[in-house]
C-alpha cells in the first residue's frame, strides 16, 4: 500500500509550520545563507481553513492515481509506494492538477527556466513524501501538535478498527448491550 501524510483537523491549529518545513526540506538549509530571493517558496501542501476544519491538504499517493492516468508526457510514476512527478518531463498541461480529486497538485514556476516569451515555466508540483530525505516527511516532524502522521498499512488498519468500534458504540444503546457504556 502507498503511504501518505494525513492531517487530523482536531489536532491542527493552522499554524503552517509544516508549510515552511516543506520548503526548507526541498530547498536545503542553505536558504539562510543565500540571496533572500534566490530560492523558490513552493510548499507542496496547503493549509485549508473552513468553518469546521483546519488541515493541510496534500497528495494521498493514490493506488491508481488520476493524475498519472491523464498525464500525456509520462511525467508521473509510482515508485516505492510513492506517486512522483518528474518536473523535467512535465509539459505544463495542467491536466493532473485538474484531475486530482483533492486539489493536491499546484502549478508553479519552478527554478528560473523561462518560456520562449520570457515568462517563467510552470510545472506540476506536489508532495513527494520528502523522497530521499533523511527522517521522512518534514511536515510531520515539525508539527507542534502532532496533527500529521504518516499513514501506512498498519496505521490505516488501526484507525479503521477504532472507527468501527466507535460506530458500534454510537449505534448500540446501553440497554441493548446489557451494561453501561464506559
Amino acid at each position: 500500500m502507498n503511504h501518505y501524510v494525513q492531517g487530523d483537523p482536531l489536532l491542527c491549529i493552522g499554524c503552517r509550520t509544516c508549510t515552511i518545513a516543506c520548503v526548507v526540506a526541498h530547498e536545503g538549509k542553505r536558504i539562510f545563507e543565500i540571496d533572500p530571493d534566490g530560492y523558490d517558496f513552493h510548499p507542496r501542501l496547503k493549509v485549508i481553513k473552513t468553518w469546521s476544519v483546519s488541515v493541510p491538504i496534500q497528495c494521498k499517493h493514490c493506488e491508481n492515481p488520476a493524475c498519472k492516468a491523464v498525464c500525456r508526457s509520462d511525467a508521473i510514476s509510482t515508485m516505492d509506494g510513492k506517486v512522483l512527478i518528474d518536473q523535467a518531463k512535465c509539459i505544463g498541461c495542467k491536466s493532473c492538477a485538474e484531475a486530482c480529486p483533492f486539489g493536491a497538485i499546484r502549478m508553479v514556476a519552478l527554478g528560473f527556466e523561462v518560456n520562449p516569451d520570457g515568462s517563467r515555466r510552470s510545472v506540476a508540483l506536489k508532495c513527494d513524501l520528502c523522497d530521499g530525505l533523511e527522517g521522512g516527511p518534514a511536515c510531520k516532524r515539525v508539527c507542534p501538535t502532532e496533527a500529521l502522521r504518516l499513514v501506512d498499512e498498519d496505521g490505516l488498519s488501526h484507525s479503521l478498527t477504532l472507527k468501527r468500534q466507535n460506530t458500534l458504540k454510537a449505534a448500540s444503546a446501553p440497554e441493548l448491550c446489557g451494561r453501561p457504556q464506559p
Partner: protein
Amino acid sequence: MSIKEVQTTCAYCGAGCQILFKVDPERNQILEAVPAMGRTNEGTLCLKGHYGWDYINDPQILTKRLKKPMIRRGGKGAPLEEVSWDEAIDYTATKLKEIKTKHGPDSIMCTGSARGAGNEANYVMQKFARAAVGTNNVDHCARI
C-alpha cells in the same frame, strides 16, 4: 567543521520555548534551530521558533541592521550622521541634562523593552529613569 551547540530561550512569544542552536563558530553562522526539552515546549517549536532567527543574518529584506551610533547633528530635519560611541553618548547625555535642568526630570520618558533585550537591560533602564533621571516615567508595551 566543529559545530557549537548553545541552548537559549525563544524571543518570539510568552510561551518561552527552549531552542538548541547549532552554530558554525568559524563563520559565526547559525546552522539550525532544534527544539529542546523546555518545561513549556517539551521538544516542540512553532514556525517562528524554527525559522525566525534568520533576521540575525541581516538579509536586507525589510529594514537595515543598525551598526553605528547616529545623531542628527544639525537638529530636527537634518540627516542622521554616523558618529563614534563617545560622541553619541556625550550628545545624548548633554541633551538629557539640558532638558532635565530646564524642565525637570518628569519631562523625560523612558521605555523598557518587552522583546529581545532581557530582564537585566530592563532593570538597568528603570534604574536609569529612577535613579539617574529622577522620574518614574518608565513603561513598556505591556499595555499595547
